[in-house]
């Protein structure tokens, strides 16, 4: 598509081209969000300057345009994080069903504070989690964007054990 400098695999450029084709020809910026999501996924869950510059080059847009998006949306990580992302919703419906205890339980179990990754880099406990639209399953969490609902300590232990042994 373009010969500008980038570090993407052929597969990745194909995927980006597909995303690009969802929008009118002159609207490359529209492809930033979804492209960043797959690029981040492909890079162990975080973005860096090189990847951001690559996407800007590949889409023939300014690096600052990509940075604006990468810094605005909460799902983008600009620093390395643990391999499996745990997001516990702590908004009202979940709070009423003791989501704060679930967070404390995970913190104790993984020996980290919310917002941190474990030493072995297996888990990242994401901070500032808002309502994940599963309020009727409260308390709930997402691990790698898969929902786990009606949580109990036992259930959390089992889920984390399974993922840790994967």
């Amino acid at each position: 598509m373009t010969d500008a400098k980038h570090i993407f695999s052929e597969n990745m450029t194909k995927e980006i081209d597909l995303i690009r084709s969802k929008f009118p020809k002159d609207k490359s910026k529209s492809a930033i969000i979804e492209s960043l999501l797959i690029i981040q996924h492909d890079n162990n869950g975080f973005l860096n300057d090189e990847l951001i510059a690559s996407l800007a080059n590949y889409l023939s847009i300014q690096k600052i345009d990509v940075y604006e998006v990468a810094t605005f949306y909460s799902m983008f990580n600009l620093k390395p994080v643990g391999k499996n992302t745990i997001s516990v919703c702590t908004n009202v419906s979940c709070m009423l069903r003791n989501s704060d205890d679930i967070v404390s339980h995970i913190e104790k179990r993984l020996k980290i504070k919310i917002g941190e990754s474990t030493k072995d880099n297996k888990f990242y406990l994401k901070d500032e989690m808002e309502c994940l639209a599963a309020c009727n399953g409260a308390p709930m969490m997402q691990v790698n964007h898969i929902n786990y609902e009606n949580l109990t300590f036992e259930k959390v232990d089992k889920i984390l054990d399974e993922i840790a042994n994967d």
Partner: protein
Amino acid sequence: MTNLCTSTFSLKNPSSIETYLSQDGYSSWKQIISKQIPKSEVITIIKESGLKGKGGAGFSTGLKWSFINSSDQQKYLVCNSDESEPGTCKDRDILRYNPHAVIEGMLIASYAIGASVGYNYLRGEFIGDQWIVFNKAVKEAYEYNFIGENILKSNLCIEIVPLIGAGAYIVGEETAMLESIEGKRGMPRIKPPFPAVQGLYGKPTIINNTETLATVPYIIKNGSEWYKNLGVNDSDGVKMFCMSGHLNKPSVIEAPLGVPFSKLLDECDGVLDNKKLKAVIPGGSSVPVVKGEDIMETPMDYESLMKIGTMLGSGGIIIMDESTCMVSVLERISRFYYAESCGQCTPCREGTGWLYKTLVKIRSGNGDQSDLDLLNKVANQIEGHCICALGDAAAMPVISFLKHFWTEFEYYVDKKQSMVI
């Protein structure tokens, strides 16, 4: 209780096109095409049905469609599947259990407003489930030629395109969503111009909620009178109610507008452990809280909720029992709006910060009576002074919590601890 958007939910393989077709799915779309029903007629049917937007504001859908700039230029439809209003969990179920109703609704809406492209914007956190299901459904509908070029040999071309966000509550606001689709930060635009005149890429655009659009095929199929008669007074039709919080069986229930609150409560087997109902937020965290006893016999419709000083909003009903500390709930709600304010308007940016910090101060036992007055004052200064409705959404909980639970807040600043613990 009444099944429109939820009609496939309990079936086997609810999201597959075969299931939807077995329920007479896509019959509305086929009928519009085969009978060449004029666009204006489709809009009239939706207008007369009384369908109101289910995303929060409750604006007449038919009327909104009629505002579309009809000049001969590119137009867009956008389906708002950003579902992020705390307490709301209905669109996620429609997307994963009845995605074809969303697609059919998007097709009909696109046709009615003359759009050749309909984008469905799903919140980023739906990427592991709903995103996959919805994409598969779109692929199926293309294979059946309900979408795409020369739809069912009619010369009609409409593309339905799934999009994904990356985490930001504010993107649920319609103009912020347009900014986001354009690949920018999700900052709401100043209105006017309204999207129906100048929307996505500057072109006329209609934005509707997922539930709104998924309801459309059922109205076309059964007629506007049928839909209207399901509801009460000016609240026509049905709504999905998301019941969460202190309940024995939290559930999403589709029911006629005007259903008594007590009936919804019964459907959820009552308050958790049969405790006493203390308070209810009936329309997502942005609407005013009411006391349990004031809502018990209230019919759940736009007018009745207005009468008791609150709103139907998104249909996210949050139930709080007698053990709930209202001060900590309000602190949590205020943290949310503070975190999610996009920061463009000074009253919202500064005000949400003040509200949250003041509530933290009170909760940590360092507050006094003057802080309660400050809360009221700041909330009143935000309301009505902002670009988008997030400012109001941050203010309304504060004003209503203080109004209905003043003694509990006073107790907290007096005794430096919660009244309920």
